């Protein structure tokens, strides 16, 4: 049914890119706060966790104000690159990435902190550069927890609605994601369409959960810890 295919594919595209962005930023910040002690570290942690607890509409509003034509960042983008993120799927990606980021960040930080520091010291004693330690020791031992966070982030990005609606609006075919399509179908009293979309959305969530369960389980079977 093509009324469902378009918002579905759009949602998957937006959620995919958002998870990727959240992954890069989340692993980066997670590593920084897990390994480096600096003044104000826990304050930064609270700030980075904020998008998770903030109402999505509040976050969406802040993003709209910042990224809009008259916003600090939006005006800069418009002037220098001719880019406007509002009403674009890229804007939807940004909004979804913001709400998904804390999920990856928290999981990554916990995963990194969980690693026995002696292992990294062992790497140093063997002559490893810090980069080699990160890619050969730290990341392989942390990727499980990070992946779990990424799965949650993907599910969250897929279902993201409030912030996305504010920033990207509802443009059929371009920013009308699955969640927004459901909302509009209900608003228009099109219950049949709404039901159909909801079933599709639920099926995807279940698939994500099952796949992530399999992946994580398979990893644990690899006798990871002493």
């Amino acid at each position: 049914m093509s009324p469902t295919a378009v918002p579905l594919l759009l949602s998957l595209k937006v959620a995919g890119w958002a998870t990727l962005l959240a992954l890069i930023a989340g692993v980066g910040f997670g590593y920084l706060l897990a390994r480096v002690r600096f003044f104000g570290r826990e304050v930064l942690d609270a700030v980075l966790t904020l998008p998770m607890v903030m109402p999505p509409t509040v976050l969406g509003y802040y993003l709209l104000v910042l990224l809009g034509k008259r916003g600090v960042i939006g005006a800069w983008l418009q002037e220098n690159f001719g880019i406007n993120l509002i009403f674009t799927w890229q804007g939807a990606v940004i909004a979804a990435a913001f709400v998904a980021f804390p999920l990856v960040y928290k999981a990554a930080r916990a995963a990194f902190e969980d690693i026995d520091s002696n292992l990294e010291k062992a790497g140093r004693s063997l002559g490893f550069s810090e980069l080699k330690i990160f890619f050969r020791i730290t990341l392989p031992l942390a990727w499980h927890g990070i992946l779990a966070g990424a799965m949650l982030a993907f599910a969250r990005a897929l279902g993201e609605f409030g912030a996305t609606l504010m920033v990207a609006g509802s443009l059929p075919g371009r920013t009308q994601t699955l969640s927004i399509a459901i909302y509009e179908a209900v608003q228009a009293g099109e219950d049949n369409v709404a039901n159909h979309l909801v079933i599709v959305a639920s099926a995807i969530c279940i698939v994500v959960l099952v796949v992530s369960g399999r992946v994580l389980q398979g990893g644990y079977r690899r006798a990871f810890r002493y």
Partner: protein
Amino acid sequence: MQLELSIVKDLQARGRQFRLDVDVRTDSDAVVIYGPSGAGKTLTLQCLAGFVAPDAGRISLDGSTLFEAAQRINVPARERGFGYVFQDYALFPHLTVAGNIGVSLQKGWLRRLDDAARARVEDMLRLFELQELRDSYPSQLSGGQRQRAALARALATRPRLLLLDEPFAALDPALRDRMRHEFVELRERFKLPMVLITHDPADLEMLARELVVIDHGRVTRHDHAPFKADVPQGATALRVIPGGAAGARAA
């Protein structure tokens, strides 16, 4: 080897202050650091290895300075060329035994092992009798096997000094005795200087040519071999038999 280790390190743990203030100068090849738990032995070894930077002082080996607070010299651990065996072995859980031994020899992003490196891994596996366990993971090994793997890994890089933190502590007494003998053989074979931390008086007798006792963050005794293994548990006082060059230094 000629080792100079004069460092000060202040730590705060659980609201209590701890000050490590040790001064060790030795040219012995087999130094044993002995002392009760919490004395600062591991901290000393970690400073020597370069894992922890002291607050003040100087560390030098065979004339080259590894650490000098006043001149802001701090050679990173990866460049010091020391092997380190941790108390819990710290084997990489996601690599096999062969992987653990070989990982330090891999070059480049594709993790290549050239022929020389491959040969060395084989040597290590053979020397430590780990050939049949080469594809096993650390979690599948017994305590003794892990210890051998940890040693093999440390020696694969041909270090110039071996640091060991209570290497036999986790083994049962019979195994411990056997390992001690093998260890002496190993030391002879590789002609490797070492600094070893232990709780166990028996280790002292077999392995040490020089003894440093650390208690409450300070060196309380610095003696030369031979030693009689007549030491009450955890005590800092030792009875030294006559004939040994006693160079006791009170802190």
